């Protein structure tokens, strides 16, 4: 028995196939979910993948958040269903208020694609338990609207309760993938909810799962092995 992990395709989703591949490489069973379908096909966890759902028109994630599938995702996430939002998926999770804060356009106003250095700040969530807290990893980043913002109260709460899951490594030379790539507050790259079942981040772990492909590293695989272990051992 392995775990069934759903990957939602919205119109404009781009990394759905890649995410399914990552799930498969980790040893779980990927299940395609469709935005118009409220049925989650009894999956054990859901990934909202990257892309430009609905063209990112209006505001990234703002339209996708109202699609039928999200009604069920929101309801079940509140009941404990593990949900990972990558890039556009993270934007959708904030629009859906499953995670606090939101994303603005990058401070330099350009799309940015690079292999980004991150630090794992919270290795106790459903999606990060295969990392060590404080571990430094390389994960590809590619977005236009990646600047995490939140009000001071929310930021204080995230910091005080250890809900910042990933931070951009701000030291060294930005050319090597170091440095805050977009002006995110507190260098935040990803966060988790209090229960640790909902995690969102801007970088793309599904693009770092094979040694030959993309960044040539496998630093993203633990996302998918973490959830698999959690589900299989549950």
């Amino acid at each position, binding site marked *: 028995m392995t775990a069934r992990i759903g990957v939602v395709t919205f*119109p*404009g989703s*781009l*990394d759905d*196939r*890649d995410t399914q*591949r*990552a799930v498969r490489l980790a040893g779980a069973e990927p299940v395609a979910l469709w935005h118009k379908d409220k049925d989650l096909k009894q999956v054990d966890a859901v990934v909202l993948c*990257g*892309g*430009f759902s*609905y*063209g*990112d*028109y209006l505001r990234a994630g703002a339209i996708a958040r109202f699609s039928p599938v999200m009604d069920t995702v929101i309801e079940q996430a509140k009941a404990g269903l593990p949900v990972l939002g990558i890039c556009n998926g993270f934007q959708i999770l904030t629009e859906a208020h499953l995670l606090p804060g939101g994303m603005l356009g990058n401070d*330099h106003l*350009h*799309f*940015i*694609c*690079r292999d980004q250095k991150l630090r794992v700040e919270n290795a106790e969530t459903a999606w990060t338990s295969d990392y060590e807290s404080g571990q430094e990893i390389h994960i*590809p980043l*590619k977005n*236009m609207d990646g600047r995490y913002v939140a009000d001071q109260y929310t930021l204080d709460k995230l910091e005080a309760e250890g809900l910042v899951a990933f931070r951009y490594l701000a030291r060294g030379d930005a*050319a090597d993938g170091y440095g805050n790539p977009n002006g995110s507050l507190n260098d935040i790259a990803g966060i988790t909810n209090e229960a640790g079942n909902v995690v969102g981040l801007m970088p*793309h772990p*599904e*693009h770092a*799962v*094979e040694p*030959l*492909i*993309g*960044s040539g590293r496998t630093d993203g695989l633990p996302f998918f092995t973490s959830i698999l272990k959690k589900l299989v051992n549950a």
Partner: protein
Amino acid sequence: MSRTPLDTVEHAAATPDVELPWAELGLKKDEYERIVEILGRRPTGAELAMYSVMWSEHCSYKSSKVHLRQFGEKAPQSDALLVGIGENAGVVDVGQGYAVTFKVESHNHPSYVEPYQGAATGVGGIVRDIIAMGARPVAVVDPLRFGAPDHPDTKRVLPGVVAGIGGYGNCLGLPNIGGEVVFDACYQGNPLVNAGAIGVMRHEDIHLAKASGAGNKVVLYGARTGGDGIGGASILASETFDDAKPSKRPAVQVGDPFQEKLLIECTLEAFEEKLVVGIQDLGAAGLSCATSELASNGSGGMRVTLDDVPLRDSTLSPEEILMSESQERMCAVVEPEKVDRFLEICEKWDVIATVIGEVTDGDRLEIYWHGGKIVDVDPRTVAHEGPVYERPYARPSWQDELQADDANKLPRPETSEELKDQVLKLVASPNQASKKWITSQYDHFVQGNTVLAQPEDSGMIRIDEETGLGVAIATDGNGRYAKLDPYAGAQLALAEAYRNVATTGAKPLAVSDCLNFGSPEDPAVMWQFAEAIRGLADACQQLGTPVTGGNVSLYNQTGEVAIHPTPVVAVLGVIDDVARRTPVAFQEEGQLLYLLGDTRAEFGGSAWSQVVHDHLGGLPPAVDLERERLLAEILISASRDGMIDSAHDLSDGGLIQAVVESALLGGKGARLVVPDGLDAFTFLFSESAGRAVVAVPRSEEVRFNDMCGARGLPVTRIGVVDGDSVELQGEFTLSLDELREAHEATIPALLA
């Protein structure tokens, strides 16, 4: 144009004396007379609209056709070619049942007028060409040329073009894996925005643009038709820019990548269910092109009701609907019993789809509007029998003088200090500097199959996860070489792209090209064009790589001044297992550096002559295609058998440019020694063709040397991967930090 009464075929026949605005639509007098002769009457307004766009230079290739024939006539025997020139894109067999389609196109003129949308819709157009062959697009590449890097207008054009390519391609989910960025003042008023795409399919899934089977339905799907891009192709791409004329901004189309992404997915789903008989994308000349192409390539005729076309603007006239270049539209021919399922798939993806006509058993293309027949033509006369010009051409009077101005006579560095300064100046020059500021605005990870992306020698994509089968693509062109000698310049462009594919370990299979030139009405430009095609066709024949299709862009000139002749050549290659690919970056200290090929004192058109002396003259490097072939074979064998760990082709900037790039990418330096028989200057800066530098693990040294020796390829040991600087023994040492600063700071400083 008055439409009361409706200008039907009947009305046109009854009113032969009505004056039509053929000249405003870009037709010459004799062309208009030819249309009247074909029809046996004056054309209706709608017919005139169709002929004018389809007979434009951009769509009809009327100036280039007589020369382009050589690509067919001289085509080498190749088992790999499944679909050749003439379709939306060529298709190549890459083995294991896979077929790959690829093509490069230009979007030059629109990108100067409106950089963001011009470049964005260039990506959109080439991607639809790929889908129209039945393939899933898997990657894009963008060869770009801009004016002087420090010219204020370059700061308008370049960031807009780059943002447009990124904005569109990123949103489609296509990794951008290659291309070039070149600066030269000759492109100031005529930037070259070429876009290439690759698609993958199984052999049995190849689709063609033809309408066959009487009774089959013609379905228009995708975006609604609007007023944008009307006459874009005919007017924008077929005339020289001239300050005296009014702004042509409204003629540029506006792209919606989200719509295109949906179009890709729903088209591929329809293909998967085998619902499509024939298909054509709507690009230049819009519905005029799609209907006439589909009808003339099929066995029957076609009847279309224009009233059924979904419109964005209900006030559009039938002529405008026919000419509109609204983006993100496709036209499919579907059997009647499959139409419902086809429409269902479109609905699933929220794509508007409408039956607008059907295939008839006649041989006419008939188009109706408000019940009246407004077009009744033989579609072949629209799509394929446009005018053909034998434009006069003559070797320019200045060519001899240019070639006599020998770059080898330019003053050379006399001291080690000068040599070092010129190395730094070279690697920091805008053309040789790192383009990371640009390429980091493109997604190269998406789809999870990117093995190599720029700045590697070629982009490489895995197409089968089980076997590791992959394809590689490189695009190259050097307008400076081609200006000195267009015949050799075109061959050097091919040779470089061919070499770049081989350097990464892939076997070159086929060629696509984008031929960017000035006005064909200038005999000197026409000579450059004719020479370049002759050179490219001869070289393709010799290297065994057929041209599968491509694009011609003429009228790239402002006033009397034409751009450098710029044939851009794309070479597609195949690699059995992407795990065997060879990257540019140095991998391990201690590995031995070898220079493959012969180095001669060849500086004509070189980066050194441009950077140090702002000079263009003499002859480009000599072409030796047999040597290119041998070099490629060695590089491919060495990759496959694990004899080399990194490789980089030598081209503009010569050996030192290549070594610095490999060192910076790998974060490992090199100690170099000038080989016997060469002086340090020639060793570093010569641009002799047919060369590459490779890093060989010590354990492979004997085997690698034996292979080169046995096959007769000159191989010279030039140093070792070592340390954190690039050192030329006895001359200079440059730290990697110093080199990185020089190489990477230039472009951001110019553009950020």
